[in-house]
């Protein structure tokens, strides 16, 4: 059957290239190449990356039907597959928790799985089977809506570099021991956790992202941390309880991260940091910290403002600053503690690298105004400052603008944008 006039262009390429091509196809198309010709019949069966996303089965309204078809497709595919499977992702909202998944995980645990992602649709959480903890070569793990109960004999994933748990049911002891038993862990992301008191002990950790309701977070032994993002919900009673304690959260949390380059704090994070003993003068300098983003900072709480100021003044190389306020605008225009500013921000302090400042949700309370004054006056290389007010009332906006106009600018290049969201 060989056509000498039109020679086969592609079937004789080395298998490694064929695999590179097949990996970049949606899984259904990759499997369908088996029907192209004799040579192609089993070329797909050795690919090491299997990704089952929304495209792997045409969606229709009957979720159960789609679920059944997808389960059958994956089971048959695994049965026909040969060789190691390094990457296995299931991200499909039509798929629900079912017993077949246990068999797939057992199969994967015997086939050198390295990168595993399981994200099922709405419904019961899937409980990870015990064979999952035998996947010794796992380097990347992402789970969503699962239950994780490591057996007592579990010694950790010795090769794990990236862990991402979203809405996963796991006991606090188990999660702490999981983190500390993965010595190579570089990236950790935990989200949608409830009432967790977490101590993170991970000597190689570089990227940390936490989101959820934490009662306490402690970073112990994370000297290499480069990026930190915390979205922390604190219920009122937790906050009260913490006020009682005497240790300073700021030091507890940010005391051991000298290599930090980027810090993002959301929701109650600034409040959390502000709890505890008075900061005094911070002993740590964040020499590499270039970006600070703090959202929902209440400019009516002196302690929160102090946290932000301490962060800024301890970061000599700070280049980018994003602050979002959350003050209650109905508070009076006169605020107590204005002497605070003279004390904490001597006029000779310099933010020598600060180039970009973005302030959002500014409600015009006096402390916010003083903060802007401080920034403008101490940033000799400032290029852009954007201010986005949170109120729509023209009068209030105008009042704020009038105040801002008075301020001395240390940088002749500074451009201040007052952005009104019409």
């Amino acid at each position, binding site marked *: 059957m060989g056509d000498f006039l039109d020679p086969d262009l592609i079937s004789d390429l080395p298998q490694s*290239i064929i695999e590179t091509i097949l990996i970049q196809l949606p899984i259904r198309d990759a499997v369908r190449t088996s029907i192209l010709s004799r040579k192609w019949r089993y070329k797909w069966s050795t690919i090491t990356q299997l990704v089952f996303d929304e495209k792997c089965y045409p969606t229709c309204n009957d979720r159960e039907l789609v679920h059944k078809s997808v389960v059958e497709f994956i089971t048959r595919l695994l049965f026909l597959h040969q060789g190691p499977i390094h990457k296995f992702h299931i991200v499909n909202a039509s798929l629900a928790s079912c017993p077949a998944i246990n068999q797939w995980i057992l199969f994967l645990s015997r086939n050198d799985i390295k990168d595993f992602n399981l994200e099922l649709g709405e419904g019961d959480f899937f409980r990870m089977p015990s064979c999952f903890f035998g996947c010794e070569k796992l380097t990347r793990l992402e789970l969503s809506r699962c239950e994780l109960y490591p057996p007592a004999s579990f010694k950790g994933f010795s090769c794990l570099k990236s862990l991402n748990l979203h809405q996963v049911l796991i006991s606090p002891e188990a999660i702490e021991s999981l983190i500390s038993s993965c010595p190579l862990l570089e990236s950790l992301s935990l989200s949608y956790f409830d009432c967790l008191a977490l101590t993170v002990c991970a000597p190689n950790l570089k990227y940390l992202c936490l989101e959820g309701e934490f009662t306490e977070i402690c970073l112990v032994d994370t000297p290499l941390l480069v990026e930190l993002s915390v979205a922390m919900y604190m219920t009122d009673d937790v906050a009260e309880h913490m006020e009682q304690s005497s240790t300073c959260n700021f030091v507890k949390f940010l005391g051991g991260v000298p290599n930090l380059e980027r810090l993002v704090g959301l929701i109650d994070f600034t409040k959390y940091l502000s709890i505890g003993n008075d900061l005094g003068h911070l002993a740590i300098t964040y020499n590499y910290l270039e970006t600070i983003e703090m959202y929902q900072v209440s400019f009516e709480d002196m302690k929160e403002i102090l946290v932000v100021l301490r962060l800024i003044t301890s970061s000599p190389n700070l280049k980018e600053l994003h602050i979002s306020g959350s003050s209650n605008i109905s508070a009076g225009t006169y605020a107590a503690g204005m002497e605070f500013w003279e004390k904490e921000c001597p006029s000779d302090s310099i933010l020598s690298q600060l180039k970009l400042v973005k302030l959002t949700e500014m409600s015009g309370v006096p402390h916010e105004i003083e903060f802007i004054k401080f920034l403008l006056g101490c940033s000799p290389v400032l290029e852009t400052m954007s201010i986005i007010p949170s109120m729509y009332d023209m009068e209030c906006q105008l009042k704020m603008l009038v105040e801002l106009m008075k301020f001395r600018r240390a940088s002749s290049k500074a451009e201040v944008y007052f952005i009104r969201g019409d």
Partner: protein
Amino acid sequence: MSEIDMSVIKPEMMKPYIWLQTSDGSIQQVEQEIAMFCPFICQEIIQKGAGSSKNCAICLPEKVTPAMLSLVLDYCRFHQVPGRSNKERKSHDERFIRMDTKRLCDLTSAADSLQLRPLVDLTSRTLARIIEGKSPEEIREIFHLPDDLTEEEKLEPLKNTTDDPRIRLLNRLYAKKRKELKERGRLKNAELEGEHVDERSVDELLSFINGNDEDSKGSKTSKSKKKNRRKKEQKKSSLLTEASKPKKELSGHSSVSDKIAGTSNNHTEDDTFSHKEFDDDDDGDVDDEIDPALQEKIDREVEDFARRLNSDWPERMQEFLSSGQERKSTLFASNGNGLLRRNI
């Protein structure tokens, strides 16, 4: 001081041009900076000092025709400049990759043989985009693939191809070995049970004879012997599980050679295991002498077989194919349509 020495020792005096010989024998001069972007050429220059003159031009792999070489060099010329932004590189690539399918496939081949990974990724991505979403007929049309599956084959469900003859033969051998180990294990346990009973009665006798002073000593020795036995039984069961592991590992794997090497290593470990075990043993079973020897023999057999398979597989294949239906039917038992042959 030869020219080659100069280019290696004094980088600032490096020749700006090197000589490359393409598949058709023609030789051309290319700026060294640009050519060095290809790992293959880089290696040739550094390790072998080739390319510095027309006489010792670097021989490029067969897939690199002059046309392909010029495309590859165009790619290198753009990307080896350090200052470009990601956006620039991306838009250059989008323009660069616009060519007919045949050239694309040839370019993939050429880039792969020159080990230029970024270009291979780019071309594979483009080929994947071409294949995606098309019907089989369209794909066959584009790549000139022969439509050589029969109608039945097209409808037939794909078979699980662990009927690779290599794997099946190996499985048979391992099954044989496992059986023997199991039998020996059973025999051993039976003997141990017997001895256990005997020892007990001897100890009792001893303690009876020697009175209460010896009691503690006697019971200690019996305890340690019990421990030893337990250890042995544990080791035995781990031996069995190790032996049974290869089957699981082998079934459904195409990278047989790696697995074969791995499992023969497993079995040399078994050897040392069994030797240790027998050293600890104070009972001095007569069987001990036979076991390691037999095991070694089977190990050697397996390793031999693996080596033979890996070295002369094509020849063996010929043997199998030409040796007639009878042999075929025993090896390819469940495969009526000889699908296996096509797998290779």
